[in-house]
C-alpha cells in the first residue's frame, strides 16, 4: 500500500479521507490548521467534492458536522484546544444526541502554549461529555485512528474525540495507507426524535449514554492502541498517554529497564490493565502530555485506601437530581410514600399557547414540505421547540443555541435538500448569525425560518436583542433581498404563507422567511408595545 510522508495533522486528514468521510469542518487554530488545509489541496477530496471550507467558528463547524452526521454521512470537525471552549455547547450535547453517520471531533492541544493563551487539556472535555478518546502516539497511529474512528463512532452511535498535541501535529513521518472505504449514502436516523433534546427525550438519551460507558471501557480494554508491556521489576510501573510513550522509549531503548509499562491511547482508560499495573507495582508513575488527567483520576486524595461510595457504585442513582427519599434510602432509612399515582393520570406536556404565531408557521411549513417528505427540519431552543410534539410533529432536531441553521447547512452539504432551519428571534441574535454567515458564504440551499415574536418567550418574555434589527442583519450578512420574505403568520393568510414557503424551498440558495407576530404572552407589556410601535413593526 502507498506510503506517504505526512505531518501528524496530515495523517489524520488522509486517514479520514481513506475512512469514507464526506465532509470536513473547522476553524483555523494552531496546531490543527494543517488538517483542513491538506484536504483543501487533496486531489481525491476535490474529486469527491468533499466539504472542505472553513466555518465561521468552531461552534458552527461542530454543528454543521453534526448536521452531516444526522443525514447519515461521515464528518470531522477540527479545532485547537481553546476552540473546543467555543464549540462546547454543541460538543457536549452531541454526546447526548449521539451520532448517526460517524462523527470525529479532532482537538489539537498546545502544551507549553507555543501559540495559545493556555494549555488546557481536551481529554477533560471528552470525559465531561462521556465519549471515547483516541490519542495517537505517532503519525501511523494518527492515520489508523482517523480511519478506524468512524467505525467506533458508528458502532456506538456516538461522537469520538481524537486528541493530539503540537509535537505530533507538526512532525512528519512515514505513513502507510489502507484500502479506501466508500462514503455513506444519505440515511436519516431510525429514531426521528434522536436529535430533539426536549427534556423527556434528552433524559432517555442521557440514560443510554450512561449505560454504554462500561462498553466503552471494554472497547478500550480490547483496543490494540492500548498495550501492556510486562516487566519483572515491580518497584515501579509506568503509564504513558499518547506521545509520552515516545519519550519513555527514547530513554530506555538501549538500557536495562524492566518495569511494566501500560501505554494508553484509547479512553476511557482500560480498567483491567490499569488495575493490573496498580496491583502489581509498589508505585505507578503517570506520564501524560497536558494536564494530569489520568494521574488525578487514579490518585485521589487519600493515603489510607478508604472505600468511597456514592453515585458511581449505585449507592445513589447515577442520573437525576437528589431529593430527600433518595438520600434516605442511601443511608438505610425507610421511605413511606403516599398512594401510587392512579393509572388514569395522563402526561400533560407543555404546549404552544392557543393563538401562538409559531403554530401558524408550523402549520404552513408542514403543508409546504409535504411533497418533500419528513426528517429535514432542524430547530432550536425556544417555545417553538414544542413543535416537535403532536399534533405538529414539525421538527427533527434541537441540540443547542443556534444549531438549527448550521445543522440544516451540514445536512444540505450531505445532500439532504431542501433542508429547513426554524429559529426564534432571540436565539438568532444569540448564536444564529454566525451560522447564517456560513450558509451565505457557501450559498447553501437551505431555508431559514426566523419566527419573530419580538421576545425571548419560553423564559418569560424578556427583551430580545434583535428587536427591529433582524431584517437589516439578514441583509447585512448578504442574503439576497429577493429571498428575504417577511410575513404575518395567521390562519387568515395561510395559503399565501404556504405559497411563499414552497417558492423558497425550491430555491437553490439561502432563503430567510420571517413570520412576524407578537407573542401573545407579552401583549400586556406596555413598554414592549411602545417599542414595537416606534419601530413600525406591527
Amino acid at each position, binding site marked *: 500500500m502507498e506510503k506517504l510522508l505526512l505531518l501528524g495533522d496530515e495523517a489524520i486528514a488522509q486517514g479520514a479521507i481513506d475512512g469514507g468521510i464526506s465532509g470536513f469542518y473547522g476553524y483555523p487554530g494552531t496546531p490543527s490548521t494543517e488538517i483542513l488545509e491538506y484536504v483543501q489541496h487533496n486531489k481525491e477530496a476535490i474529486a469527491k467534492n468533499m466539504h472542505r471550507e472553513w466555518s465561521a467558528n468552531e461552534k458552527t463547524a461542530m454543528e454543521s458536522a453534526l448536521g452531516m452526521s444526522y443525514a447519515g454521512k461521515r464528518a470531522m470537525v477540527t479545532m485547537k484546544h481553546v476552540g473546543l471552549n467555543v464549540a462546547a455547547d454543541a460538543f457536549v450535547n452531541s454526546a447526548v444526541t449521539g451520532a448517526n453517520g460517524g462523527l470525529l471531533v479532532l482537538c489539537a492541544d498546545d502544551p507549553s502554549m507555543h501559540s495559545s493563551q493556555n494549555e488546557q487539556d481536551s481529554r477533560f472535555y471528552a470525559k465531561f461529555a462521556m465519549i471515547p478518546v483516541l490519542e495517537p502516539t505517532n503519525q501511523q497511529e494518527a492515520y489508523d485512528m482517523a480511519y478506524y474512528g468512524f467505525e467506533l463512532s458508528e458502532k456506538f452511535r456516538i461522537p469520538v474525540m481524537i486528541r493530539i498535541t503540537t509535537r505530533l501535529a507538526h512532525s512528519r513521518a512515514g505513513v502507510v495507507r489502507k484500502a479506501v472505504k466508500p462514503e455513506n449514502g444519505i440515511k436519516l436516523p431510525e429514531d426521528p426524535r434522536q436529535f430533539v433534546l426536549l*427534556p423527556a427525550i434528552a433524559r432517555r438519551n442521557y440514560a443510554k449514554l450512561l449505560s454504554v460507558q462500561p462498553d466503552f471501557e471494554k472497547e478500550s480494554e480490547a483496543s490494540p492502541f492500548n498495550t501492556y508491556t510486562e516487566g519483572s521489576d515491580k518497584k515501579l510501573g509506568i503509564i504513558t498517554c499518547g506521545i509520552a510513550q515516545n519519550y519513555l522509549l527514547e530513554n530506555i531503548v538501549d538500557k536495562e529497564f524492566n518495569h511494566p509499562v501500560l501505554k494508553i491511547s484509547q479512553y476511557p482508560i482500560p480498567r483491567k490493565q490499569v488495575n493490573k499495573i496498580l496491583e502489581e507495582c509498589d508505585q505507578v508513575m503517570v506520564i501524560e502530555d497536558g494536564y494530569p488527567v489520568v494521574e488525578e483520576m487514579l490518585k485521589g486524595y487519600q493515603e489510607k485506601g478508604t472505600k468511597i461510595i456514592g453515585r458511581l457504585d449505585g449507592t445513589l442513582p447515577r442520573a437525576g437530581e437528589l431529593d*430527600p427519599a433518595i438520600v434516605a434510602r442511601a443511608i438505610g432509612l425507610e421511605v413511606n410514600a*403516599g*398512594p401510587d399515582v392512579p393509572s388514569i393520570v395522563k402526561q400533560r406536556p407543555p404546549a404552544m399557547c392557543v393563538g401562538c404565531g409559531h403554530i401558524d408557521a408550523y402549520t404552513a411549513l408542514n403543508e409546504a414540505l409535504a411533497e418533500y417528505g419528513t426528517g429535514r427540519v432542524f430547530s432550536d431552543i425556544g417555545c417553538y421547540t414544542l413543535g416537535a410534539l403532536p399534533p405538529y410533529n414539525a421538527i427533527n432536531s434541537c441540540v443547542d443555541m443556534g444549531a438549527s441553521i448550521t445543522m440544516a447547512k451540514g445536512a444540505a452539504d450531505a445532500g439532504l435538500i431542501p433542508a429547513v432551519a426554524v429559529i426564534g428571534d432571540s436565539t438568532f441574535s444569540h448564536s444564529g448569525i454566525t451560522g447564517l454567515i456560513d450558509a451565505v458564504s457557501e450559498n447553501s440551499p437551505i431555508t431559514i425560518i426566523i419566527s419573530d415574536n419580538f421576545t425571548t418567550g419560553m423564559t418569560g418574555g424578556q427583551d430580545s436583542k434583535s428587536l427591529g434589527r433582524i431584517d437589516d442583519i439578514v441583509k447585512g450578512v448578504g442574503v439576497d433581498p429577493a429571498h428575504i420574505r417577511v410575513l404575518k403568520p395567521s390562519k387568515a393568510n395561510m395559503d399565501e404563507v404556504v405559497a411563499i414557503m414552497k417558492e423558497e424551498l425550491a430555491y437553490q440558495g439561502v432563503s430567510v422567511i420571517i413570520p412576524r407576530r407578537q407573542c401573545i404572552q407579552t401583549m400586556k407589556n406596555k413598554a414592549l408595545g411602545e417599542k414595537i410601535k416606534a419601530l413600525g413593526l406591527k
Partner: protein
Amino acid sequence: MKTDIVLSGVGGQGILSIAATLGTAALENNLHLKQSEIHGMSQRGGDVQSSMRISDQDINSDLIPLGGADIILSVEPMEALRHLPYLKKTGWVVTNATPFENIPDYPAIEDIHAEIKKIANHIIIDADAIAAEIGSRRSSNIVMLGAASPFIEIPYEFLEDGIRKIFGRKGDDVVNKNLEALAAGRKYSEENR
C-alpha cells in the same frame, strides 16, 4: 408546628400567586419558610408544581419528602392525583373540581373525582363557581387557599394579613374581594370536611 403543602395545577393557572400569599403570611409572622418551584417550560400549559414548607423550626430540604405532605392543594383535579405519593397517611387533598382539558386523552372527570374520593381526607370544591358568586372570577385561587386553610397550621389572621400585603397596592376593593374569597373557601371546607 409544621405544614408541608404541595401546590399543583397547570402552567398559567396561578399556583405561584397562592404560594406568594402563603409565603408572605408565613414570613411576616416570623415563621420559617422554604418554597420551591420549576419555571421555564412549565409556563406553557404543562403540569406545574410548587413545594411550600412552613415551620416554626429551621427547614432543611426545599423539597417535601415522599409521604411527607400535609396537604395537596390543587387548582386542577387530575393534577391533585399526580402528586399522591407525596401525601402523608392522614394528609388532606384539597382540589378544584373543574378540569383543564388541554390534552387529547384527558380522562373522564367522574373517574378523577372517584380517585380523589378514595383519599380519606379530601375536599373537592368548585372554586370557579364560588369566585363567580362573589363577583370576582380571578380570585378562584384565593378560594382554593381558603379551602385549604383549616388544615394549614397557621392562624387564619396571618393568611388575611398575607392577602392585605399582596393585594394592598391594587386598592381596598381588590383586597376585600380576596378576603371574601378566602372566607368563602374556608366556609366550604368547614361545612364539607
